[in-house]
């Protein structure tokens, strides 16, 4: 079969990224310009600031991605772009840049759902086999996605309030950790013990949905109460207790999903997939599912990047999923929810 070559764009939040992906699984280049340092000034992503950074970065990233890959426009089979979900002002930069490049070089435009990108990040390591299940956990998303085949994404469970990563950032603030707090909370959790036994919301309910807002409140109340009576709590224990609650719920629901939907692979993707506590827990839980292979997206590809969008784009190209020049950003784009 002829090689496929995709130029891909990702600008859904605070990373401007352009990549060149061969055959849906080989990274020829993956340029990521991150704005974290800018938004750290404000304790979180400020959407208008994010949009302004994206437009500063976008053409430089395209140039670098092309140079590093050694490819030129006639080599490409398509231009893939994240068109949602995400921050609308951020998405619009990638969508407009991608449409422009596609039109200028007469290339097909491939619209990619950001969540599909996080899942297809796994394909950059090993080919995904179907049926598959994906747990996508990030600052904006917490979803269980069932995939009977490669172009079929069904949400079977999702968060009803905060995303898991959002909860990490919020309790991180209480612990004095700047956004994004996930990595440091994870490190502290490994030094502490679960002594506070925070609630595991919805853990026993007969569905695959999540809720993290109650956990966040329980955490904040515990810290405030201690402050009021002038006791100090061990921060590592707080982190460990919080993380234990998050990981318990994520893994319990995932295990429940695997029992109802037997799959060949379980994929863990999204920014929070870099969490070592979560990775270790799923490795342990998956020993009960010998037929199911655990596919951990490598840590350097868990954060937002265009390589994963190119991997998903290559699959969509095979299925002739194309958009025309009227493609718009869709900030609340979702897969179908199957209940």
């Amino acid at each position: 079969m002829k090689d496929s070559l995709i130029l891909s764009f990702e600008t859904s939040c605070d990373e401007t990224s352009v990549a060149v992906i061969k055959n849906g699984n080989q990274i020829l280049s993956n340029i990521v310009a991150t704005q974290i340092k800018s938004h750290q000034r404000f304790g979180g992503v400020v959407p208008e600031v994010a949009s302004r950074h994206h437009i500063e970065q976008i053409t430089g990233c395209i140039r670098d991605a092309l140079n590093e890959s050694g490819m030129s426009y006639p080599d490409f089979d398509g231009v893939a772009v994240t068109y949602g979900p995400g921050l609308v002002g951020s998405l619009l930069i990638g969508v407009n840049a991608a449409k422009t490049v596609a039109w200028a070089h007469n290339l097909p435009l491939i619209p990619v759902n950001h969540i599909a990108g996080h899942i297809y990040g796994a394909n950059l390591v090993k080919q995904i086999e179907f049926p598959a299940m994906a747990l996508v956990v990030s600052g904006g998303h917490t979803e269980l996605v069932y995939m009977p085949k490669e172009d079929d994404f069904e949400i079977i469970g999702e968060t009803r309030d905060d995303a898991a990563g959002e909860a990490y950032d919020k309790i991180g603030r209480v612990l004095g950790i700047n956004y994004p707090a996930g990595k440091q909370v994870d490190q502290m959790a490994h030094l502490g013990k679960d002594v506070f036994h925070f609630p595991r919301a919805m853990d026993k309910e007969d569905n695959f949905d999540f809720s993290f807002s109650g956990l966040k409140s329980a955490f904040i109340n515990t810290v405030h109460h201690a402050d009021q009576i002038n006791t100090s709590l061990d921060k590592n224990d707080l982190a460990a207790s919080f993380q234990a609650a998050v990981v318990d719920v994520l893994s319990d629901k995932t295990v429940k999903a695997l029992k109802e939907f037997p799959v060949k692979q379980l994929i863990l993707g999204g920014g929070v997939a870099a969490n070592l506590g979560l990775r270790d827990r799923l490795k342990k839980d998956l020993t009960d599912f010998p037929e199911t292979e655990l596919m951990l997206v490598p840590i350097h590809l868990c954060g937002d990047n265009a390589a994963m969008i190119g991997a998903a784009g290559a699959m969509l190209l095979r299925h002739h999923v194309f958009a025309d020049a009227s493609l718009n950003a869709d900030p609340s784009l979702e897969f179908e929810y199957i209940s």
Partner: protein
Amino acid sequence: MKVLSLDTSNQPLSVAILDDNRLLATTTITTHKKHAEFLMPIIEDLMKKSKLKPQDLDRVVVAIGPGSYTGIRIATTVAKTLAMTLNIELVTVSSLLNLALNFKDSQLLINPIFDGRNENMFTGLYKFHNGQPENVIPDQHTDLSEWLNQLKATNEKIIILGEIDSFAQKMKEKLGQHIILADPLKSIPSASELGIYGLHQKPVKDVDSVVPRYLRLTKAEADWRKLHPKEDTSNYVEKL
């Protein structure tokens, strides 16, 4: 020289294709603000009707702001990406000047206005000499009363145009006969004028560093800079 010019700074969207001073095709829409959806299909369509391929273009001229932040980002993203990807020239023009160009044959002072809401405006004052603009008062983000003080000092007749609905009456009250309201048709930016003006301007040297002319910091950024006046603002974004 084949030129593509575009302005999506506010509610109107205007695109034109020119061959030197000759207009080949143009479209202007004022009824929608769906620039992200409409801009590329309109460019495609006008290029087809002009019997041109993207590779035939020599130059892109874009109205770079001020204006709606999203609006100026859409045109600027398309323009800088096109210039980069086709390796052609990029000319940026003030969106206020582009509006003023509708009166390039007038002897009077020209005052284009974009509504910044709550009595605020993006505005500037222009005068043309043989069709060449002079920016008499620089483009700025200001409020109505401050702007009226600046205009009063000129003591000349001024044509106001653009998004003037919330300002016209108060401007007339304060400056009386000096204020002349533009014909509504001339309050709509024209990509044809933009393209012809852009033919004779110098292209930017570094396409990658082109950003919209917001003329206003975000609130978060402004507050931060007040507290950290000496911080280096050039390294907030890092390549991994």
